[in-house]
């Protein structure tokens, strides 16, 4: 079945620069304030872009100004999310997608490392018990085709 994102949409460029909708600039100011807070008090901030009334081009302009920095991470759980630090250290884009590649959340995190990248306690407990199980069974690490090899199952 053809998916929405497969339909070619040609977005016409604004007639001139005056047709900017101006909603990217206030967000950039908000980011600046959040960066200062991070620097002074270590307080992190998350901005959910879903709640901002962007017009055509606003989001593109914002992401264009922020650019891309040194770190990019692919998170594969419930679909592929892309998390990257922008050209402004401490400003991260967290772009969550579902298994169809559709965006389910787009957030800007002003923080040292986005929370979701840390290994979570529950996952740590789970990996301890899985590795223990592997080492307990005699052929747990013996064969490449062992059904226990590979990553955990993920929805």
């Amino acid at each position, binding site marked *: 079945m053809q*998916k*929405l994102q497969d339909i070619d949409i040609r977005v016409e460029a*604004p*007639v001139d620069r005056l*047709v900017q*909708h*101006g*909603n990217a600039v206030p967000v950039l100011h908000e980011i600046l304030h959040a960066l200062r807070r991070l620097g002074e008090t270590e307080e992190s901030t*998350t*901005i*959910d872009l*879903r*709640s*901002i*009334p*962007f*017009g*055509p081009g*606003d989001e593109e302009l914002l992401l264009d100004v922020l650019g891309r920095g040194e770190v990019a991470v692919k*998170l594969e*759980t*419930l679909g592929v*999310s892309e998390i990257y630090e922008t050209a402004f250290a401490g400003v991260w884009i*967290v772009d*969550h997608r*579902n*298994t*169809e590649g*559709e*965006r*389910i*959340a787009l*957030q800007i995190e002003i923080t040292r490392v986005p*929370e*979701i990248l840390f290994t*979570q*306690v*529950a*996952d740590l407990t*789970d990996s301890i018990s899985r590795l223990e199980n592997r080492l307990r069974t005699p052929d747990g690490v013996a064969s490449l085709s062992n059904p226990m090899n590979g990553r*955990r*199952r*993920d*929805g």
Partner: protein
Amino acid sequence: MADSNTEIKTLGESLRQRGVSRRGFLKFCTATASMMALPPAMVPAIAEALEKARRPSVIWLSFQECTGCTESLTRAHAPTIENLIFDHISLDYHHTLQAASGEGAEAAREAAIHENFGKYLVVVDGSIPLKDPGFSTIAGISNLDMLKETVAGAAAVIAVGSCAAFGGLPHANPNPTGAVSVSEIIKDKPVVNVSGCPPIPTVISGVLAHFLTFGGLPELDDLGRPKVFYGQSIHDRCYRRPFYDKGLFAETFDDEGARKGWCLYRMGCKGPMTYNACATTKWNQGTSWPVESGHGCLGCSEPDFWDGGGFYNAISIPDGDIARNIGLGAVAGVAVGAAAGMLNRNAKADAAARHETVTVDDLEKTS
């Protein structure tokens, strides 16, 4: 449809059983918070609540409706966040989606009522005809009887779509079936109106997610709509608003103003009197929304929007000069919006009384 006999008790267990990691769960909670229009700082609280959330039983009743609301909700492709939520609720009865029919289907509804008495959620789409019960029946049961019988043991009712919330199209003049909304019949249970024709899918699932997460209903406005989604007008969140404030209006669908993305007020945009989340949540996975596509808001989430005159009539500005009518330029933007909203409400009532129809001239409107 979920199997109600499953052993799985909480959403956390359900996701873990599918092999979803804690990180995946956090991603799920982030998207759910965003869908519920809650601040990102609430993600840990949402995670804690969703971890323990139990499967609520949901009975979905469809009365005088076009199935557009169910269509809207099921537009999501699996497995999105919506699907995870719908996998987790126990949708025990839905005329359109269930495989069972006839007596088997009615037996499922009765069993769900009996087993979950006092705790289940009833979702209704469509209005209820009062003039003659025979206008709309299911398994020989009138809509009115089925609604009363099903709601008797419900924790709350969610009226999905403008028909269930306000009567909608069946209620439009001259209302041949005597159609009424759910809240005109149900007075002793909380009724949440999720209006829209249809409502935005994420708004429907956002309200269900709220019930699933917090076990209660979100705060409502004076028309029974969740404030998080209906708290602000389309006009107040519209990205074309700066053009409105400057008095720059498109006059036809293909003039210079239309190409430059100016305000659609003069082409009939009902944004100033319409409360909905379109301007921020948008449609089709956030792709766009009517005003962004160049068409004015029809006001579909407001009562009696079908009777508000032509969709292409700028009903609040009889002589077509907004600057003269409301003193544009001298007043701050928000005050202008509020004034225009009031003018609109009055003019809307006039138009309803005249029962105007749309003509080709309206489509080509230039004044």
